[in-house]
């Protein structure tokens, strides 16, 4: 397993937009009582959504992570470790 950046994944603009939509949709159901400590920030649902909207470094990492997570779910890689 190796992690890849969005650039390395070579997504088309359309694919990237769909991924962004999916991540934003996913964030709408993020529980309000949890947050994510990433880099020098502790981000709640609203702040995390803003990072994804602006496609900055954190927003892009969120998209990479979601794509990997879904790919590993689909491939069964995740369940292979259970």
């Amino acid at each position: 397993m190796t992690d890849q950046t969005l650039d390395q994944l070579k997504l088309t603009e359309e694919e990237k937009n769909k991924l962004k939509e999916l991540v934003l949709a996913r964030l709408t159901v993020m529980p309000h009582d949890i947050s994510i400590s990433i880099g020098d920030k502790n981000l709640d649902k609203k702040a995390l959504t803003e990072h994804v909207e602006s496609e900055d470094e954190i927003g892009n990492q969120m998209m990479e992570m979601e794509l990997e997570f879904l790919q590993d779910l689909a491939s069964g890689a995740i369940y292979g470790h259970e």
Partner: protein
Amino acid sequence: MNKSLLVTRPNYDSATHYLYRWTEPVIAEAKRKHIPVYDLKEDKATKKTFLSYVQSKHPGFLFLNGHGDAFSVGGHDDEVILDKKIDTGALLDCIMYARSCDSGKVLGNTLVGRGVLAFIGYTRKFIVGTTRSKITKPLEDQLAKLFLEPSNLIATTILKGHSAGEADRRSKQAMLKKFGKMISSIGSFEERFAARWLWSDIRSQVVIGDHNASIHS
């Protein structure tokens, strides 16, 4: 290798506060094993103090906690305490674990190329899921525990004399076990949501250098 532990753990924002508190069990474990501990905490986590201890004590295991990027690790108030400019003669024959964002991207390779035996870090931002109501009580945060307990296992496994590779393996095994619980029907909704974050830590944790290096080397 000098069987001693040097820890850096700044404590000036919520992220460093979590790492600061969650490093306590590792320090306690080292003390239980009568391993000398050099604890550079809070405003002692400066470049000057770090260099002084590294050069005079030659600790065999360095456990760095703090903010960072691909090229450096920070200390108190984000002062860079370790980057490629360090006199690496002082870092020869040691194992280093940098619980810091992106530390395994470039810095780890640089240091291993200059004499660090093994480096454990992350190829992307290190993530901890947190519970907002527990932000001032990190050790009571059961969500953060899912991320930080397996990461502590890297340090405690090395302190027990096992290799860097074995520390990485045990830590990942522990993360995978917790991940499995999180995505299962017994995981809470919060845990199921945060599982993707733990998956990212599992994927990005790397060992660079000699996987067989241990503090008994």
